């Protein structure tokens, strides 16, 4: 079941990438980026279960703790008309 889940989530990342490319505004792209990040987080946990390697979860913690900073900076950049 876990293998099926990892295949399905991989396909869903590819589908979300289409929304990032065709999205009419830049905020749509930002939303797609956020969703791709959370999908990758799920994939790392699943792969860590498949391969039975606990140290891969450290990378998942890094994604969860650090990944939001760039999204917040881009959002503020767009709101304040080009100032950080």
């Amino acid at each position, binding site marked *: 079941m876990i293998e099926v889940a990892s295949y399905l989530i991989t396909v869903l990342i590819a589908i979300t990438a289409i929304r990032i*490319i065709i999205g009419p505004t830049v905020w749509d792209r930002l939303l797609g*980026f956020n969703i791709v990040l959370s999908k990758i987080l799920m994939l790392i946990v699943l792969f860590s279960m498949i391969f039975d390697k606990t140290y891969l979860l450290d*990378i998942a913690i890094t994604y969860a703790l650090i990944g939001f900073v760039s999204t917040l900076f881009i959002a503020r950049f767009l709101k304040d008309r080009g100032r950080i």
Partner: protein
Amino acid sequence: MIEKIFYVILIIFAFFSVQTPKLRRSVVYLAVFSAVSAFTYILMGAPDAALAEAVIGSTIATVIYLAALNKYRVFMVYLTDEKRERHQEEHISRRKESILLAIENFCILRELEPQIIYTVDSVDKIKEKPGWDLIVSKNSGNYVLHGREQNYHVMALKEEWEGKQRKQVEFIIEKEHE
């Protein structure tokens, strides 16, 4: 199988991040590229490199790109249409307005970063906001462009387009009282 899908995604994002004319889009594409490439490092069996790429490429490099884009001046264009109550989404994605394409070409030539905002507020209401450079209001087929006199990019746009004799474009320049 999973690796091949990720390789295709990487190639697509690398291509679009180079090809797009707007730099703010390119920053988002590069952030997605870094996040996906960090996962492919895990699949190849290099967790150390994946950790470094996830921190450096996806966070710090993105913020530094944004700080570099700060030097690029942003040109705010409001597009308002008083007759229509709301903007349709298809209207934005298909880009029917040819004047917007002309404004974007002008901005790319002068190294400005255009940010176009669709709104339904009236012109006077937009003018109360602090930051605007150009307001395009559509009035039964004619375009009326509002600008300020001390903004020399708008004056250059006016000079360039008045030479070409565009008929349906009219400029209203607001003078500063000081």
